[in-house]
């Protein structure tokens, strides 16, 4: 097993491990972290695929960069939502509808 294959396997393992986390965890922050780790696994796979040739494949690098941008902004958005949602849970625990 050469280095690239090792990284590939590692990437897949990270992906699967964090997928398991996503499916079993309940707390939204933890789930968000799990998703981010899935992303890390995916990017690891992509970067190691790019290393297979002598000249690293620029297309895959471009993809990883784009993917990272998307992941960061989405994570920020998700954090904002989760925090706002939990605040709302604390302040408004008894509210309900006017009618059943």
């Amino acid at each position: 097993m050469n280095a690239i294959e090792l990284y590939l396997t590692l990437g897949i393992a990270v992906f699967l491990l964090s997928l398991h986390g996503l499916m079993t965890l309940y707390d939204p922050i933890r789930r968000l972290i799990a998703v981010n780790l899935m992303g890390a696994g995916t990017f690891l796979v992509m970067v190691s695929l790019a290393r297979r040739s002598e000249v690293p494949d620029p297309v895959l690098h471009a993809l990883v960069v784009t993917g990272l941008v998307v992941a960061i902004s989405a994570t920020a958005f998700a954090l904002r939502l989760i925090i706002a949602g939990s605040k709302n849970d604390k302040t408004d625990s008894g509210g309900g509808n006017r009618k059943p």
Partner: protein
Amino acid sequence: MNFALLSLAIPLFCGLLLLLSGRALRTRTTGFIVIVSTVASLVAAWFALQEAAAAGADIMLNLGGWETGLAIRLRLSSLSALLLVFTALMHLLIGLYAGLSRDGIKRDYWALSCFLHGSLAALWLSADLFNLYITLELLGLTAVAMVALAGPKAYKPAANYLILSLAASLFYLLGVALLYGRYGELDVLLLAPRTQADVITRLALLLMTTGLMLKAALWPLHLWLPPAHASAPTAVSALLSGLVVKGPLFILWVLWSEVAPPTLAQQIGPVLAIAGMIALTAGGLSAMRSPHIKTLVAYSTVAQLGYALMALGLLLTWQLPQMHIALWLFVIAHGLAKASLFLAAGEMQSSLGTKRVDGLRGATQTVPVAMFAFAVAGGSLIGLPPSGGFLAKWVLLEPILSEPGNWPWAMGVLLGTLVSAAYIFRIVAISFDRAQINPLDINPDRVGHWLALLPALMVWGMALSGEWLIRLLAGGPV
């Protein structure tokens, strides 16, 4: 092609403009601008459709003059042109409702709906697996933001929706990476002749399919949809159920009917078709039991997507490209009908002050127009002639019935029809109750009710252009 680009650029440009203008414009003005730009986009899409129909073949464009393989390549087929028209039309109908109904909508809706429109248009036109990923992400993020417009109560379902959507995108992205690693291509048309049925391709396709099915809420990965769609503001629910879930479905179709090698496609076909049949039944049964109006409508989306999934599965099983006509007719008919259902459900909820199905007692008297809209749109979901839903069902039935060996699949259509009739008429029957009428909570908004009826009338109007639509989707000159 220029018209198609225009149809894509107008909403994106309009969305950016609104974003930059910040709070300078009043909500009404914002709405007006968006509706005008949607009309413009619709007109452009219509011309693009004429162009595509006249060409009779796909039109390709490399953005920015790069060579094929590096450039962002766009593809205009008669299907993508039709979907452009459909997207613009849905945005127009729902935008009119959002702008003119009394409840109104938050200012941010308008910019977000522009981005949603733009990203969907880009999705229909993309011919590159990575571009498709970008549009998919844009679509998902915008959709989540729109769910959150409903206020603090929706934050939780919105966050859950977002996390699942991100995970699904990563599944897809990993699959794309594997395919690229195997073949060194991302372009759909360049990839198509090269794919082989080996382990890596299987794994990649499996990953992508899982992600896309999760995004499209296809059974058994549908559980996130009902809470997310039911908690969004009315106009947003209509957009989500009518349009957004169709995006990943489109990619799934491209993936399996073009990229995947036929041998693999034939293997997965029956699996998808059976999942579709289960979706029809299970989603329908959940809708039948749901105590809340909007949840019922959301589960009906899960069920109706089963038809599309079944059409896709059978298309792959039998390698019958013309089955995609049924698939896309279902998508369009369902989109229009579902828009009406959600708008009507939302209007009835606010007029009657109740979210529960029981609260609709006597609705034919208290909110007659909205209830009528619900019933008319429901008729198309059931597939009563001559609605759009019937058209789609008919096209799906033809190949099933032409071979005695295929007849068992007809059971799926039969079940789907009966189950949808059961949940639609569950609501309709309650609304005729005169023994214990639920009185109006507030004076109903007449404009809103009539606007809810509009898409339903259009889906029944599809019958008049049925033959034209079928020929258009068949790809030949019209």
